[in-house]
């Protein structure tokens, strides 16, 4: 069984928001990034995976098992990092650990201590005295200390400085040296993903725009720049979004090859970043 996570037609309806038939698949040994603007449904998807909220319909399988029927077993094998605080504020770092550790059969104090000193977390400080970044580090230390096979993180890098974000990427790379592990993380800071992620799932308004390997995405999408004059109807149709100004246009296409054939020397073709893809897709042809 090589699939670590498989979601099919997952639907959740709120007043004013619908997570609409989300499907995605992640194999062992890889990192998937979940991207999208605020309110796209990233956190809702993660909460549904963790069975923190009820779905309306669809299937979620983790390690090949239904995530609700086998919740206990599955959660033993998951490390979860959440962007909101879910610890007792008045306990210290070590006290909180003593509350959490017994839940996990495979809890490993040595690993935990290693991360606490690596992250320079003060053992006797109360949770409420920790800064946002320290809380995130603490949450990460807890998630990584019970030999989890699947790490799920909701916005782990938001509010963290570039130095720690880069440190965290190193940790992710170290985890993934074990080809039986998998990582899913949501973020709107796409530069983190641009490096490490193998797969990208892009959510917008509750729908999957694409869920594919990052290299193919980067190859298919391009930023095109040129004179406004060449934009006729047929050309415009090849773009996902175009931004025109007095001196020219810049647009995003996922038809790079067509554009190259049609316009060759008349335009500049540049590699699109995940940010470009997100911004143009969300704004469309405004």
């Amino acid at each position, binding site marked *: 069984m090589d699939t670590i996570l498989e979601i099919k037609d997952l639907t959740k309806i709120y007043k004013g928001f619908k997570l609409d038939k989300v499907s995605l698949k992640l194999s062992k*040994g890889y990192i998937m990034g979940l991207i999208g603007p605020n309110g796209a449904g990233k956190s809702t998807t993660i909460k549904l995976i963790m069975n923190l909220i009820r779905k309306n319909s669809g299937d979620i399988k983790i390690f090949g098992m239904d995530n609700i029927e086998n919740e206990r077993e599955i959660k033993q094998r998951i490390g979860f990092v959440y962007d909101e605080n879910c610890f007792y504020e008045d306990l210290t770092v070590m006290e909180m650990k003593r509350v959490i550790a017994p839940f996990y059969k495979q809890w490993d104090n040595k690993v935990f201590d290693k991360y606490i000193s690596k992250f320079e977390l003060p053992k006797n400080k109360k949770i409420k005295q920790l800064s946002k970044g320290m809380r995130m580090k603490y949450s990460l230390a807890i998630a990584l200390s019970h030999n989890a096979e699947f790490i799920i993180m909701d916005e782990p890098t938001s509010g963290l400085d570039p130095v720690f974000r880069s440190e965290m990427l190193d940790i992710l*790379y170290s985890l*993934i*040296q074990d080809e039986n592990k998998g990582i899913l993380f949501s973020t709107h800071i796409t530069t983190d993903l641009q490096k490490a992620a193998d797969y990208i799932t892009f959510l917008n308004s509750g729908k999957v725009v694409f869920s594919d390997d*990052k*290299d193919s995405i980067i190859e298919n999408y391009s930023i095109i720049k040129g004179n406004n004059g060449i934009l006729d109807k047929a050309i415009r149709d090849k773009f996902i979004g175009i931004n025109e100004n007095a001196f020219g246009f810049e647009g995003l296409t996922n038809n790079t090859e067509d554009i190259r054939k049609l316009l060759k020397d008349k335009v500049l073709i540049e590699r699109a970043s995940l940010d470009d893809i997100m911004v143009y897709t969300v704004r469309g042809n405004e």
Partner: protein
Amino acid sequence: MNIIISNASKEPIYEQITRQIKDNIINGILYQGELLPSIRSLAKELKISVITTKRAYEELEREGFIETVPGKGSYVSAQNKEFLKEKKIKSIEEKLSQAIEDSRLIGLTKEELKEMLDILYDNI
């Protein structure tokens, strides 16, 4: 072995890796039978995704530069050095042809071009 990845280059990252590993093999920096880093450790070192390094290795395998033994790793294959050299010469010929075409475009004579080549060859 050094591998330098440019994020600004138009060349896809997996191609940057295959090209540099090939060069290392052709230039004798990597020996026949030498064990290459695993796709996962290479991804970690270069700060790129595993799927990219995997694709690079698959490409090298297809072209016969490396062989992968499941559970053990990837090794540099026994290479036909003459064949590799032949390939390289062909690519040099192509580049020179391009230079000649460009020279004709601006009216540079054969002698002038040769002179340029002499100077460059001695200085690079």
